């Protein structure tokens, strides 16, 4: 039986790699869980592209403020040191390379760093991209948080994406439930494998050339 860590464990693993002082965008969906595992006592500045730096955790129920939400439209709070700004300024921060890290979900990540996470390309699907393409090309480091395998058992880390791209050559590291992979010189390199996973077993699971 192959070791797979839980979603929460994966979020904790990513959180542990974020250094103090980093400016980080956690996208929407699963990556937002990373916030819950950021080390207590370290100052990490969360950016949400709808206009806030210094985002804090969810409010208590009686402190919900409909004007204060994150990119996933969930209620959040603002920490001391926070700043509000408009959408063009917010995306200028992102696109101008001022975020240290963003964490995104993925349908596929290619070994050259291409990311597909906004559309499966299915006929009849309603397209919706939001800020994904801006995040993908904007942050200094783009971390992907994903299961290694899709529900049908196929690898989400691939030689080349078959889904519509979000960004070209943008992913620097993929955190999966089996292992952490770096994108290096057009190949995935296993940074660390969880439990009984090995480079060989990961090679077998994914069909990728791995180093």
């Amino acid at each position, binding site marked *: 039986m192959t070791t797979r860590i839980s979603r929460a464990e994966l979020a904790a693993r990513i959180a542990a790699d974020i250094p103090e002082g980093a400016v980080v965008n956690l996208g929407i969906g699963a990556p937002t869980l990373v916030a819950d595992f950021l080390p207590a006592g370290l100052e990490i500045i969360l950016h949400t592209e709808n206009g806030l730096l210094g985002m804090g955790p969810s409010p208590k129920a009686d402190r919900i403020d409909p*004007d204060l939400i994150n990119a996933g439209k969930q209620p959040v709070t603002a920490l001391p040191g926070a700043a509000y700004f408009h959408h063009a300024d917010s*995306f200028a921060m992102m696109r101008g390379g001022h975020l240290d890290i963003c964490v995104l979900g993925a349908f596929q990540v290619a070994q050259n760093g291409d990311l597909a996470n906004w559309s499966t390309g299915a006929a009849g699907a309603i397209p919706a991209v939001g*800020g994904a393409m801006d995040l993908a090309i904007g942050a200094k480091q783009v971390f992907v948080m994903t299961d290694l395998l899709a529900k049908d058992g196929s690898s989400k880390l691939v030689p080349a994406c078959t889904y519509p791209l979000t960004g070209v050559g943008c992913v620097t590291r993929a955190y999966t439930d089996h292992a952490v992979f770096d994108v290096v010189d057009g190949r995935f390199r296993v940074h660390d494998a969880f439990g009984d996973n090995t480079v060989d077993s990961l090679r077998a699971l994914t069909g990728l050339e791995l180093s």
Partner: protein
Amino acid sequence: MIDKTVTDAAAAVAGIVDGSTVMIGGFGRAGQPVELIDALIAQGAGDLTIVANNAGNGDTGLAALLAERRVRRIICSFPRQHDSWVFDGLYRAGEIDLEIVPQGNLAERIRAAGAGIGAFFSPTGVGTPLAEGKEERTIGGRRYLLEYPITADVALISALAADRWGNLVYRETARNFGPVMASAAATTIVQVDEIVPLGSIDPETVVTPGLFVDRVVAVGRRPWLDADGFIGGVDIEGRPLADAADIVQTEDAR
């Protein structure tokens, strides 16, 4: 005396004609100019092009405008939400045109319209399906796409307070698209909680200077600013909460 205040939302949206391009501020429900949208529905203009981040939620606001078949085309970044059934139905029926724009390009294209920029090379979308038909150029070793401004006849936005010159301040993340849309539309119409006396907004803190604003209407204090007022908020899927107990407690998680 300059006085951009009007008495009610109906007066604020007067004169919007069929075929107009209308920008609508807001990100999800934060910063949505709800009263102005309702007034536009009542006002009757149709064959509209809407520029907004989303394509409507539930059956109210922008969704209600869509439901009345008043919108020919929508330019937005994220139409598909759990409660965007009105848009979804129209889109699947081929009854509305959609231009999908990455959110950063949307914001920057609107800013460009307000700033007199003819076009700009954007790093976003290169190599993706949304690059189709766009001019690509490599500058300094990086690939960019040429993006054009998005202008509008009218912008409908929401702010916290205005003075009679139209200077605006916003509240928290409800600021979002308001300032750039205000700069990009021929006529900018703003709903605010209250009109404050000229000179009572610190000039250091004005977010949208009055020259971008044409009409302001006070619609009353947002309920959640009153003690014991409305508990707003949404759950993790973005669904409005029925009551406060629905929200997950994570304040102490860090």
